[in-house]
């Protein structure tokens, strides 16, 4: 690992009409780390990610990838750099099976545009195995029949299959139950083990403290701090997000009123 971050954003600003969504934001992701991106609603998390993914062009600021200045104008540019985004809605086709979804839009074919199913199936199986996704009984079953956690796994596997180096997960556990959340978090940890860099957007501090190496906090479109996970308690995290007094958050110790 070099000291150089994989992705480095400096001084990013973005406005939509009169709404200033991002103001002079810095953001970096190192090789093989899980960088959590947190913030309250309207903090600019999604806007920042969409700038990286090439969905919105940045108004100001620079993007450096692997030490090289780059511009990303559309999702294809991002994919070309090895940046893959798994959006909250997963963008899977329910009627297609796991293999078909993983190769959607990038099917292996011969020069007559005939599908080459066996290599696709073999590679999909290999990718899922590499991520130790074992809960899917048949990769030829339609995605409609999968559970939420399994669908998330398929979407993540699709993202990492294409030699991607940076995988951005947008609220991957928002719609999942406890067991399935654990499945997905384990998957996130495995991505990092394999040397991929991960950006994890989440509202859920539990998820973040389970997986993240570092935490970037945004507030109202500005940087509110970058923390090493090891150096910060959940209480301080909440504090940074809300930028006020420590707030009462049910279920998180330390934010409760002290019991007398």
């Amino acid at each position: 690992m070099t000291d150089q971050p994989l992705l480095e954003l400096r001084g990013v600003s973005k406005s939509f009409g009169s709404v200033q969504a991002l103001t002079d934001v810095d953001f970096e992701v190192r090789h093989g780390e899980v960088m959590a991106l947190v913030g309250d609603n309207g903090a600019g998390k999604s806007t920042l990610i969409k700038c990286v993914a090439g969905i919105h062009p940045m108004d100001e600021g620079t993007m450096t990838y692997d030490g090289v200045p780059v511009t990303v104008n559309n999702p294809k540019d991002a994919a070309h750099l090895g940046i893959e985004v798994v959006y909250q809605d997963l963008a899977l086709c329910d009627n297609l099976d796991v293999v078909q979804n993983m190769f959607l839009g990038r099917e292996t074919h011969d020069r007559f545009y005939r599908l080459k199913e066996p290599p696709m199936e073999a590679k999909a199986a290999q990718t899922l195995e590499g991520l130790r996704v074992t809960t899917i009984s048949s990769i030829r079953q339609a995605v409609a029949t999968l559970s939420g956690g399994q669908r998330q796994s398929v979407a993540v596997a699709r993202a990492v299959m294409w030699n991607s180096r940076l995988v951005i997960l947008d609220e991957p556990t928002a719609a999942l139950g406890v067991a399935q959340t654990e499945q997905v978090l384990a998957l996130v940890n495995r991505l990092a083990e394999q040397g991929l860099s991960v950006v994890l957007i989440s509202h859920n501090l539990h998820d973040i403290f389970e997986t993240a190496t570092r935490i970037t906090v945004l507030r109202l479109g500005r940087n509110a701090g970058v923390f090493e996970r090891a150096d910060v308690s959940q209480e301080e995290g909440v504090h940074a997000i809300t930028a006020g007094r420590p707030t009462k958050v049910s279920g998180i110790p330390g934010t409760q009123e002290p019991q007398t």
Partner: protein
Amino acid sequence: MSTLETGEPLEPEALRERVVASIRSGNLGSWPVIIALVLVVVVFSQTAQNFFTPGNFTNIITQMAGTCLLAYGVVFVLLIGEIDLSVAFVSGIGGVVVAQAQLPNGAHLPWYVCVFLALLATTAIGAFQGSVVALVGVPSFVVTLAGFEIWQGVILRWVPGVIVIQDPAINNFSNYLFPTGWWSGWVPGGWTLGVVVSLVYVGGMAGSAYAGVRHGIPIRQPALLVLKLLVVPAIALTTVEVLNRDRGVPLALLFVVGALLVWSFVAKRTTFGRHVYAVGGNAEAARRAGINVPRIRILVFMISGLMAGLGGIVLAARLNSVDLNAGGGTLLIDAIAAAVIGGTSLFGGRGEVRNALIGAAIISTVSNGMFILGYSTGTIFIVTGAILLLAVTLDTVARRLQMRSGR
């Protein structure tokens, strides 16, 4: 494809496995309809005189050929979650163009130029309607409803009563019968066609199974594969045998089977087909995966136009003429109903090309059998409508089961 031979007993183990898996995934496929078709054939062959005869079998095939060709195109349109209400009158346009182009005291073009012009015209109509849907974003229901009116209007406005088709080559599109043996001079006989179709099917299926095995992927349900490899050629050759007992294999059947093989291949084995299913399943996901969704939509409407054109030529050839009713009557309803009854979902993303053939077969068989039994057209409509309702109800229930089994 024989409607008479699907009654062969299936291997109970494979069948049960398949049925359970299908019901669980909510994808009933064509099985209910195939069973219904067998029942219909059995009932009519017991009750209707001269129903279960080679001659009537030939009749049913030529009656359903046009509808079936249209329905293949409709399947593609339904797969992307759209609808094409204009197919019937577009097919009428195809018939009219062919008839006008061959007029001995008019354009008098050679038959292949006539056919080419007709297919070009209907494909262009499909491209136009598809572009309005895909690029402008007008709902396909409205675009093709407008097309329904417009193309009917064009036929009423420019067809001078009846145009008789005098070119024998064009009339052969429906009426030609292949020789009953293997060869007659340079013309292949029914048996040759049956063997070739069987070989294409077996070659395709066995080839892909072999490619899988080479990559270390085991054959799923080997019993079912073997069953298919035996039953489909058996159906093909029995069909030839039955038709040969009458007057031979009609050219129209070759169109029906040939188009089935071609479009099934396109739908299931090409990137284009995969993208069609993807657009129907989740257009936004397809777009984000880098698929050019408008392009797929336009191409699908072009396929619909092309098949409507071919179907229109066959229908015109059957009557040896076109008149003001070209594309009218129950053709539209039959074509869409054939696709839907066969198990193609109206919600997009689910269905097979062969559904159109099975659906067209059931519609033609029911109306043929009831006609022999002396029922009125009204009764036949009521029964066909009831079958359509039943099929869509099954599809909706199956879909709900699938939603429930997931998550």
